[in-house]
């Protein structure tokens, strides 16, 4: 299949009719973002899709749609003309009709096909033509959107299908299955016949029973091996997927840890700042007293002034009081001396002596008797009474003086405030005078915390951005998946390990069983039948057995050769596509199911498990070119390779090498790309060096950035 022309009419941004002609070699379709590259690719996908029969109005050009009058209609058409045992055309189209204001409908989707024959252009069913010339399987190996599409052997059956489709190997399958049948039938005929041969019947029966059992075991083991390999492959695939994100996952966990640590730090600063509530501190920490020192001085001065005044007044008062007391005593003394100069002091004789004299009825001062009732006796009794009065008065006089003195101050409120004043002085005063400095220090501290918090918050912002970048790089992988990756990875490794171990065991077991099978077969073969008829059966069986082995061996050999040849060609392309870069060696590893997987190795034998994006792309492309080559050889029938933005991981130098090589590859190749553009302008100097055809697609000038209906793709053939 060689594409000659593609026509796109009113398909999305392709307004009106747009035609592309193609040569047998490379054609570049160059466009910038939004110029219609992907639309070109999707137009082809839409054309080749045979599964949907209903039209989708969204594929209709918005520009054309905006021009339709009520009652008018126009068509959306994509058609391809190609050479595939003669020129053929496949066309898919539908009609869009405007039937009211803002009312449109899409109808009549048709799939048309034409074949150019000697008799002229003959219409055929378009769908059938697609299925015949470019079915879904072929599309899978020839149309690639982006770089991720290129891994054609992701699907474990892909290689097998490829071999079946494009090589003669499948022819062997028929013969293998025929000869298997012949061998089986001839064997059972021989076994049946040998039962009549007494000489060997027992041994044949015995060996055949063993052989049946071994074959059963072998078949089971082979089935289990296939399943186990499939399972190991499954986990291998999962691990590869996860490993793609392993680095991201590691970065992600690391940044998450850092963010957590920063958040804790920020919380610490916020706590410290909040603990310093300036307004509340006015009260709780008595900051309100910062202006108080002056008031305290006033209070201290006032209370000490009152205290001093009170003491002064009190001293004056006591002095006055003392003076008056002294005057009275002196006066009393003088009056006593004048009135009784000859009188005995009142305290002579004493109270006891007087009581004795009264008791003894005699005056012991003068020695005269004083009987009871006499004048002298009465005198002594009066004298005793007088003594007692004086003694009482004396005792009264000896009581403390202030008890009887009148006080000047009856309250001690001045002492109360003075004592408060003393209490607020000294150490307490220094606390109050230090308040201003304390506030200053605290504000400074909080300012420091705030500065640090601001720094931490800036850091956090940056880390959040970094985290977002990581997530973007992970291409839509969710945060949860990145979190899970590590655990899953371990689980998958375990599973894969178990499967691989089991596969090894099974391979060993199969090897042993095959040995047993061959042994029993040899044993049967070695038997010398006694009967002529049995000998004939045996010879027939032997012959079919040889034929079977020949076909099985040939099939195996051919497959291996096919793989080797494919590998050689792929490596040839790989070397050319990476002329100036490390490329490694492609290996196609055969699996139990006769399929294959692609792996990249270094020349020293170690597998390159994580090839770079461009290595991977060139590796897959090399295999694709090789497949295409081989199929061309086998079927004398080519098919194109169509890539949309397949080189996005290439650097400039790589890009040039790549196009220079691919320009000379003898293969129809259509590459839709934004390479060769410098600020939307073509780098003609580089393009001129190429021999291929080049189309430039771009948005027509004068569009409105917000209005889809003003956008149309123009197609210009550059060379």
């Amino acid at each position: 299949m060689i594409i000659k022309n593609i026509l796109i009419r009113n398909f999305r941004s392709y307004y009106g009719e747009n035609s592309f002609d193609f040569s047998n070699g490379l054609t570049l379709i160059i466009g910038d973002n939004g110029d219609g590259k992907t639309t070109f690719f999707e137009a082809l996908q839409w054309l080749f899709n045979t599964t949907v029969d209903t039209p989708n109005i969204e594929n209709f050009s918005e520009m054309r749609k905006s021009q339709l009058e009520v009652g008018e209609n126009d068509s959306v058409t994509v058609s391809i003309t190609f050479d595939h045992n003669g020129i053929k055309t496949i066309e898919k189209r539908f009609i869009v009709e405007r039937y009211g204001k803002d009312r449109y409908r899409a109808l009549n989707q048709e799939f048309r096909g034409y074949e150019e024959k000697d008799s002229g252009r003959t219409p055929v069913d378009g769908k059938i033509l697609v299925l015949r010339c470019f079915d879904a399987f072929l599309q899978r190996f020839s149309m690639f959107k982006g770089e991720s599409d290129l891994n054609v052997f992701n699907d474990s059956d892909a290689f097998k299908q490829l071999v079946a489709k494009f090589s003669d190997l499948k022819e062997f399958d028929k013969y293998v299955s025929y000869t298997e049948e012949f061998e089986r039938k001839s064997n059972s005929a021989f076994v049946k016949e040998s039962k009549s041969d007494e000489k060997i019947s027992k041994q044949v029966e015995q060996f055949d029973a063993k052989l049946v059992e071994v074959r059963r075991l072998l078949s089971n083991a082979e089935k289990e091996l296939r399943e186990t390999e499939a399972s190991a492959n499954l986990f291998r695939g999962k691990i590869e997927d996860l490993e793609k994100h392993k680095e991201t996952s590691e970065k992600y966990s690391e940044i998450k840890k850092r963010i957590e640590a920063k958040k804790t730090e920020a919380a610490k600063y916020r706590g410290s700042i909040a603990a310093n509530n300036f307004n509340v501190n006015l009260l709780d920490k008595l900051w309100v007293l910062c202006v108080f020192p002056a008031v305290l001085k006033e209070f201290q001065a006032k209370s000490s002034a009152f205290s001093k005044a009170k003491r002064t007044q009190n001293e004056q008062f006591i002095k006055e009081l003392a003076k008056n007391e002294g005057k009275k005593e002196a006066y009393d003394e003088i009056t006593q001396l004048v009135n009784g100069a000859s009188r005995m002091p009142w305290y002579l004789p004493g109270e006891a002596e007087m009581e004795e004299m009264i008791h003894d009825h005699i005056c012991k001062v003068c020695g005269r008797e004083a009987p009871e009732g006499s004048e002298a006796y009465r005198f002594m009794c009066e004298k005793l009474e007088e003594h007692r009065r004086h003694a009482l008065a004396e005792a009264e006089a000896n009581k403390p003086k202030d008890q009887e003195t009148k006080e000047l101050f009856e309250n001690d409120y001045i002492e109360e405030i003075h004592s408060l004043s003393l209490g607020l002085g000294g150490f307490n005063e220094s606390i109050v005078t230090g308040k201003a400095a304390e506030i200053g220090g605290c504000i400074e501290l909080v300012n420091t915390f705030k500065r640090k918090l601001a720094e931490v918050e800036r850091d956090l912002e940056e880390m959040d951005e970094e985290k977002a970048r990581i997530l973007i790089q992970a291409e839509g992988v969710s945060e949860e998946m990145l979190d899970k990756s590590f655990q899953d990875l371990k689980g998958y490794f375990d599973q894969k390990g178990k499967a691989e171990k089991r596969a090894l065991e099974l391979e060993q077991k199969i090897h042993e069983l095959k040995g047993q099978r061959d042994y029993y077969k040899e044993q049967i073969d070695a038997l010398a039948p006694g009967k002529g008829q049995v000998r004939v059966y045996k010879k027939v069986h032997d012959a079919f057995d040889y034929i079977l082995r020949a076909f099985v061996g040939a099939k195996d050999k051919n497959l291996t050769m096919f793989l080797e040849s494919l590998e050689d060609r792929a490596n040839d392309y790989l070397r050319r596509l990476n002329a100036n870069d490390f490329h490694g060696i492609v290996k196609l590893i055969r699996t139990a199911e006769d399929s294959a997987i692609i792996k990249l190795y270094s020349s020293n034998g170690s597998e390159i498990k994580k090839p770079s994006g461009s290595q991977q792309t060139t590796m897959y492309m090399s295999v694709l070119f090789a497949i295409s080559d081989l199929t061309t050889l086998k079927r004398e029938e080519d098919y194109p390779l169509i890539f949309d933005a397949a080189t996005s991981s290439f650097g400039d130098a790589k890009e040039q090498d790549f196009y220079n090589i691919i320009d000379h590859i003898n293969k129809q190749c259509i590459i839709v790309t934004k390479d060769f553009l410098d600020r939307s302008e073509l780098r003609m100097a580089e393009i001129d060096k190429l021999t291929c055809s080049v189309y430039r697609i771009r948005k027509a000038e004068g569009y409105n950035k917000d209005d889809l209906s003003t956008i149309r793709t123009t197609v210009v053939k550059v060379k």
Partner: protein
Amino acid sequence: MEKLYDLWANRNPEYEVKYDDTIIKTFCDYGKGTTMFQEARGKIFGAGYEILIIAFFIGLYKDQRKTLVGDSSKRKVLGQPIKFWGNLDSKPGRVSYSNIRKYIYAALVARSDVDFIALDKGEITNRKAVDILMTTMEEYINWGLDFIEEKMEDNPNYFFKDTAFLRVFLDMLPKHATAQKVDYNAKSIEDDDTPESLD
């Protein structure tokens, strides 16, 4: 003899009813039962008397008094007498500052015209002396509340900042005081306009 301090501390200063809505309830949890404490979040101060203390010190430091309205129906007192002021132990995140009472008392003695000689001689009653102290206190508070209200009329958000009340006091500090040297207007502390000076 009962201490004059205790007689004073048993009292409860009067303030003008009009400040209830504009100031007391704006800045304090006043008027909310303890069960409604959650709703009181965001208030700068706790008990109603706290804003009275702030107002008192503003009046005191500026030495500005304002006589209360004559009509007794336009005056009121808070529930807690002075002797309970600053006992905040039960409130989360706050500490007791009961010492403040002594300083208020000392300031009142310093700034009131009480003849303590006459008082100690018994020539005037202790009740009369406490009346004089309370008048001083109420007039300082009254001026302080008026000051706060005036600021808020100019800018309703004036006091709703981390440092707003503190700044009022720092602005009254003598110029040589240490805190003045600190850049408390730094952007990291406050994001917008600086309160104007009281001077």
